[in-house]
């Protein structure tokens, strides 16, 4: 993974190549920050548009970003853009399906245990997901967090959709068991 200094050096040699390196380094990070904020209200297209906004902003202000502050600038730009996107989305009239509504209810703090407990649970869950190993880790995160369709995930992993579906089901069962054993789930 390239350091900020290396990224700046690349940008000094060739603007486009440098920007591409910056994008490669931080695009996943920015996408996640934005998606984390807007998921449930926005679509993947909304997130992608917001990501391109963030990088357009970063590239336009690249020369004025201080040394050693590139990542924090990108993080702040991503959060602000996510908030702007949310504002825009909230102004957009939308009809939630029952299923989506049901999910949003579940996702609300009232329906989850206390903040501290859920924070610990999330850390435990992420550790458990990571411990699953590939390709199960990717399948769980891409499908459950990034909401990418199974067929698309299958394409990325060069597997059949049925195989991905099977692995997903097994991984979920395993995670549920782990959370239950740890006392996080009944």
């Amino acid at each position, binding site marked *: 993974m390239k350091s900020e200094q290396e990224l700046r050096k690349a940008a000094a040699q060739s603007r486009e190549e440098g920007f591409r390196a910056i994008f490669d380094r931080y695009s996943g990070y920015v996408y996640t920050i934005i998606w984390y904020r807007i998921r449930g209200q926005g679509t993947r297209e909304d997130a*992608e548009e917001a990501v391109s906004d963030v990088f357009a902003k970063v590239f336009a202000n690249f020369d004025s970003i201080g040394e050693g502050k590139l990542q924090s600038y990108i993080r702040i730009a991503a959060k602000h853009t996510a908030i702007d996107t949310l504002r825009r989305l909230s102004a957009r009239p939308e009809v939630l399906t029952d299923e989506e509504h049901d999910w949003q209810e579940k996702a609300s703090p009232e329906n989850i245990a206390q903040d501290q407990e859920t924070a610990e649970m999330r850390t435990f869950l992420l550790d458990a997901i990571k411990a699953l190993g590939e390709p199960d880790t990717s399948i769980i995160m891409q499908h459950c967090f990034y909401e990418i369709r199974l067929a698309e995930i299958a394409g990325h992993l060069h597997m059949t959709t049925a195989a991905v579906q099977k692995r997903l089901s097994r991984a979920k069962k395993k995670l549920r068991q782990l959370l239950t054993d740890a006392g996080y789930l009944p």
Partner: protein
Amino acid sequence: MKKDFISALLAQDDVLTAERIAEEFSPQIDMERIFQRSMEKYHGTAVRRTFRSIQRRTLFRTLTAAACLLLTVGLGVGVWSKQQKIETGPPQHAQMPVMQTETESVETSLTTALQTTVKITETSRKQTETSVSSTDSVILVETQAVTETDAPVPHTTAVTVAQVLTETTDEARPTEPPATILQTEPVTAVQTLSRRNAPQTETVYIPAHQESATELPTTETQPQPETEAESFTQVDEELLTGFRLEQYADYRKVICTDSFPEPDGALQPYTILSEELVLLSSSAEEAAEHTYEIECPEAGKTFTVTQREYSEFVLTVEEGELINISLNRAHGFFHLQDETCSLYWFRNGEGFYVQCDVNDLEYLMKIARSFTPADTQ
């Protein structure tokens, strides 16, 4: 999509979780498309910013010119009204003795100044000296001071002053020659001193095939008699690989330093890869130049792209008119002039050129980005 306990847990607003997911679990999506979109937005922003700054500079220049004009008119009116007052008032005999006592010294200093400042032919200098009178000497000295500052507006003022003084003294000394004879030489001096002015904006192309040079769009080839000897400084400003920027007194030259391959008259045919653009026609009536008519339905306009081989490329621009861009790894730049915008880009030793109104410059980028070699289809 059915949401389960994993989605519900990960959906909580928790900064630490977000940071961790961002660091450890990247999304597997097509990022190239997003990158291209970012670059489009970035270039759009950069072009808009530069265009705004050019607009501001143009406005500033216009205002300055208007202020100068007003000042000149004001001075002219002031002098004219003073002249009117003098004409209607009593003759100023009291000034005469002073003028006469200064005549010789002023005459000497005038000749010296002329000899050291500019090369004036012997005949014209003689003409000047013979026509010098006491009053006119004063006028010429004032004019010389103006020529050294190389400013056209004060020069006009000096001439006006000369007329006033001449007419003031006419009444007292009716035998003196008119001051207008004197004015011819100093004006020549002004012109000689200010010959360094380069043409404001001028484009020089050296096409690979001379026979088609006359068909180049919107280029005006002008001789550059003075600029060859003019000194320049290398501008330490980022340009894409293959270009050099030279700063002259009041203009810049962008020079393509790439060594163009030997023109062989065989241009690579190109096509348009875009759903937003329609390639209406492409013509290659002569081997040295291809033209492509491209319609942009969104803009409701048709643009013409010219493709040709170059043996050398030099473009003269004013400061701030150039916007450096990168187009799918090709070298390129915008040249903004008042209301028109030209886009040049170079690929595989061939040059491309398209021009439009500044309001349509975003379409030029779309065209350039979607311009693809036909054999890759």
